[in-house]
């Protein structure tokens, strides 16, 4: 009941320009502190991942590098975050670790989201037995916890980054399928869908051009929230030795490897762990902010 926006005159007085619409959206976003923080962190993480080779102080540390003269040095100059038990610079490895984590996110979402959206759209639009078959199929996959499924797949195939990505993708589409299915079922009843049908629009047109654009904001919010989860699962797999293999620097592997030097060499575990938390936090805050902005029920 509280009036938080200017009352809109319903008569012929409200034609604002397209640019004003965007500015209004940005204004609202700007005034949401969590969203802004999330955006900053997310952009930071992405930049780091892209520029890792350029900005890391000791690029060699990312690969097969050993320097026993400097092993396990605590955080100090020039190794600001210390070195691990092979003498590799922690900061560098963390920066490169972001690369791998984000690569995982990109691949998983690139495969999983379109597949899930497609299945959800088709199931929701057609209904009937098509919906029943597709959604039960989805339910089966949904009932298996992601990490367990990923573990199962990667223990059968050779554990490496590629297979880890495949394993996670194989599950990720299910969430989007369910999300889009729900949205499609409710949007299907909107007047503008009826109007398109009355015009003679094809089912394909209705699904892709009428319904899908209205689901985009929910999908977008889900993607940003997913990113955090994918990073965590990837890190989890690597921690268990089923994902990225050394000497590739993945944050999860680093946490695992570092545990053997606890508690004296704490920086080997703590910093990679914090790095994971930071990235996940950033994506989550951004997702929350977007959700508030779009007022979406995800």
């Amino acid at each position, binding site marked *: *009941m*509280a*009036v*938080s*926006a*200017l*009352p*809109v*005159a*319903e*008569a*012929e*007085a409200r034609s604002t320009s397209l640019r004003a619409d965007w*500015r*209004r959206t940005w*204004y*609202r976003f700007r005034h949401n502190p969590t969203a802004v923080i999330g955006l900053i962190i997310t952009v930071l993480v992405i930049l780091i991942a892209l520029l890792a080779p350029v900005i890391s102080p000791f690029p060699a540390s990312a690969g097969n590098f050993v320097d026993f003269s400097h092993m396990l040095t605590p955080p100090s100059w020039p190794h600001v975050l210390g070195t691990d038990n092979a003498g590799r610079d922690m900061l560098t490895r963390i920066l490169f670790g972001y690369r791998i984590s984000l690569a995982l996110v990109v691949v998983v979402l690139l495969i999983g989201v379109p597949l899930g959206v497609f299945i959800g759209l088709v199931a929701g639009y057609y209904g009937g037995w098509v919906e029943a078959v597709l959604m039960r199929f989805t339910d089966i996959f949904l009932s298996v916890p992601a990490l367990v499924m990923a573990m199962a797949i990667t223990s059968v195939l050779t554990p490496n980054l590629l297979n880890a990505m495949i394993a996670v993708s194989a599950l990720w589409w299910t969430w989007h399928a369910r999300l889009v299915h729900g949205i499609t079922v409710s949007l299907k009843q909107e007047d503008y869908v009826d109007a398109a049908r009355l015009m003679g629009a094809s089912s394909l047109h209705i699904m892709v051009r009428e319904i899908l654009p209205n689901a985009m904001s929910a999908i977008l919010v889900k993607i940003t929230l997913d990113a955090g989860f994918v990073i965590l699962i990837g890190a989890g797999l690597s921690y268990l030795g089923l994902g990225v293999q050394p000497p590739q620097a993945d944050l999860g592997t680093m946490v695992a490897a570092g545990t053997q030097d606890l508690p004296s060499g704490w920086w080997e575990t703590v910093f990679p762990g914090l790095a994971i938390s930071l990235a996940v936090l950033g994506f989550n805050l951004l997702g929350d902010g977007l959700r508030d902005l779009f007022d979406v029920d995800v």
Partner: protein
Amino acid sequence: MKNAHTLRLHDLSVTFKGFEGTARVVDHASLTVNAGELVGVVGETGCGKSVLMRAVLDLLPARTTRIDGAVEFDGADLRRLSRRARRAVILAQFNMVFQDPVGSLNPFFTIGQQVREVLAQANRRLGRHEGGAALDQRARALLARVQLDDPDRVLRAYPFQLSGGMNQRVSIALALSTEPWLIVADEPTTALDVTVQAEILTLFSRLVREEERSALLITHSMGVVRTTADRVLVMYAGVVVEEAPAADLFAAPRHPYTVGLLDCVPRLTGQEMAKGIPGTLPNYTAAPSGCRFHPRCPHAMPICVQERPPDFTVGAGHRVACWLYDGTR
């Protein structure tokens, strides 16, 4: 008279601050409700009538709203009281009936639970205590007052199980339960069928008069105020443009907007309606100078652009904010 109170809005202005700028959505509005009166406030969407009502009931967000002017209850300006004191007066003396009966009743609770809760809360405020049986008795009596047959069935039901008309009767009963002096009804029948609307309006005005209360009826329907209100105020773009006893307003409307509006209402005689009022509602962040209606007025004069018209008296209790009625010109 039992409840001899008075509510007087004096030069009330409400300004919102938002992305597009500052907007004065109520502009120096004055309004009086005397004891035993049913005052209608009529206007189209965006005219400020709902905002006006919310300003009176202290329902506007403090951070982005500025309210100027006085809201006097029995001579004391509520705006000058502390928030707590103001709320105390409002809770004791006013109550409200909303437009959407389904929206204002909680769908998760039965009618009985909601009525009992409202009664119990009122008791707490007054320091009274009543047992469950006494509350039930009062709840049943309340429903009988709004002519709901079979009150026990209604008390057991959920809002979605009742018709719109029945839900609105419950809303009226709830509003009456705190024994307010003034009931504010915001579009109470807009969501109802026309036959139900007639019943509810008859009930509402009868209850108000029989119980010697006062009411502020806010609506966009000219027909509704004509049949229900004693006195009518017409609002346009945040300004009260005309005020008159109901019969006088419809027999002899003066303000060009009132005239234009009445011409647009479809008639049962079947005669053609006017083709609308030319122009559009103003942008409140850049409102027209002088009289806010001048860009759309067929009788606009140079002074209308320069100066905002004051109220001119054109009859007993009949005032118009229009330069056409300036006796000195």
